[in-house]
């Protein structure tokens, strides 16, 4: 989780990722941020996030993103 928070904070230092729960619904992260974020996550965690995983509920909070990573790690 700490590694993910570091990636998120590097991407957007202006956002409080520990408490924010509507990153997509409130349009805090745009599509460019999402692509950068996924590239970093794929590199750091060795998973493959694909367009089918790009649902708002998977990216609205740091917790949701972490759950997605864990799910994909289990599938590997």
């Amino acid at each position, binding site marked *: 989780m700490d590694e993910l928070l570091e990636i998120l904070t590097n991407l957007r230092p202006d956002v409080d990722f520990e408490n924010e729960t509507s990153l997509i619904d409130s*349009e805090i992260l*745009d*599509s*460019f941020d*999402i*692509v*950068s974020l*996924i*590239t970093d996550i*794929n590199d750091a965690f060795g998973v493959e*996030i*694909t*367009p*089918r995983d*790009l*649902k708002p509920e998977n990216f609205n909070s740091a917790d949701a993103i972490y759950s997605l990573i864990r799910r994909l790690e289990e*599938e*590997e």
Partner: protein
Amino acid sequence: MSFVSFKFYVFIAAFILLYYLIPKKYRWITILSASVFFYIFNAGSLFLMLLITAASTFFAALRIEKINGITSDTLTKKELKAKKTRKKRTVVALASLLNFGFLVTLKYKRLIIPGMQALVGIFGFEMKDFSSSLLMPLGISFYTFQSIGYIVDVSRAEVKAQKNFLHYLTFVSFFPQIVQGPISRYGDLEKQLIDGNDFDYRRTKFGLQLIVWGAFKKLVIADRAAIVVNTVFANYPEYTGKTLWLGLIFYALQIYADFSGGIDVARGVAQAIGVNLEENFRRPYFATSVSDFWRRWHITLGSWCRDYVFYPLSLSKPFGKLSKKTRKIFGNYIGKQLPVILSQLIVFIIIGMWHGSEFKYIAFGLYHGTFIIGGILLDGVFKKIRDTLHIKDTNFAYRVFCIIRTFFIVTVGRVFSRAGSFLTAVSMLGACFSPTPTGQPGLYELGVDEKGMTVLLIATLILFAVSVIQESGYEVRALIAKCPLPVRWILYIAGIVSILIYGVYGKGLESGAFIYMRY
């Protein structure tokens, strides 16, 4: 049957009435029958083309669903997933090839047929030019995008494949959205169209109000502004400077009122029967950057391109490899941004091509793409400039500056889509920035007299006021509903009467065609 014709209003009155008179279980049949009637009334036998698209994507989705259900005792989870992905990709590719093939052939027939003639000519054969017999089915761009979106959603397991073809056809042919969008997603509409909706007085009333508001924008604003635009663009060699700018600003007003007015009518009709169509506009001229503009203008085309083109491309393996290679050469920042930049460029070329076959449309797409990519690359520089000048991006004056800057960029870019050709657009742009000589026509000499201009100004101020209220987070129709009864009825009657008196009508009270109908 235009969305702003008397015939259409008789048709939708009968449709809404019939919808609620029929038992809830069968209400979807009213929608399907009305849609088939509307389509055949407007496009005749071209309905067959829509049927082919509906049938091919319906069966493709069923096939994909079957693949989703494949299990294996011998393969690992990862291997099975890869196998399913490969199989699903083949089905999606075949269905896309067929349906985008129709779309591209019909849109690009002026390029494709001479090309085919030249090709068979090499082998000594002759081929007749049959391009005039290839007619564009009504709304082909819209229903093709919706249908392809549906099969991709099924392959991503976001929605279940529909087993009843007539239910699916109700979605593909839904008449309010067939003419000029919005481009809807199957998952959003399935239940709303098929399950049948109860009558809700407030919802139906809001729907009817939206139809009136859309007709007001189209007939009072767009079709009046169009007179000035047509005069300026038809006689552009005679004009320079100020007159051409007037033409461009009036075009910005016309195209927004025309397109968003048409969408309001579509959303209003759907809302009257309890179907909520996606918003396609969110005050685009209040955008503070070009990317913000595309999040507010033709939203459903933008989100379609984002979900089905931009993400798949930017997250694809080849783009990922390219990114890693370029990181080594140009550094981390450029390397990471490269997939985003390339995908964005491709999206804007597609958006340009979506509008038509001429090069001017590609130039239009590239123009917007360039500003968006420039925005990404120069983001750090802009931030430094703001910090040096101690300007906060929440500052009101700065936001107004950004809004005016974006409006200017977007308005200039429209020359490419509106001018007769790319070269005409370039020559008009050159003339725009030349000084205005004496003897250029005044504002009232471009086809709309002083009285007409006053009507246009007042109507535009109403549109602006409504936009400011909406941008502040209020819903205008909910505010009207809170007014006392006499005030409400004065507003309703004033709205309808102003359309009847101040709307621009041609022969036989027919209005001008909607701009986006031809896309």
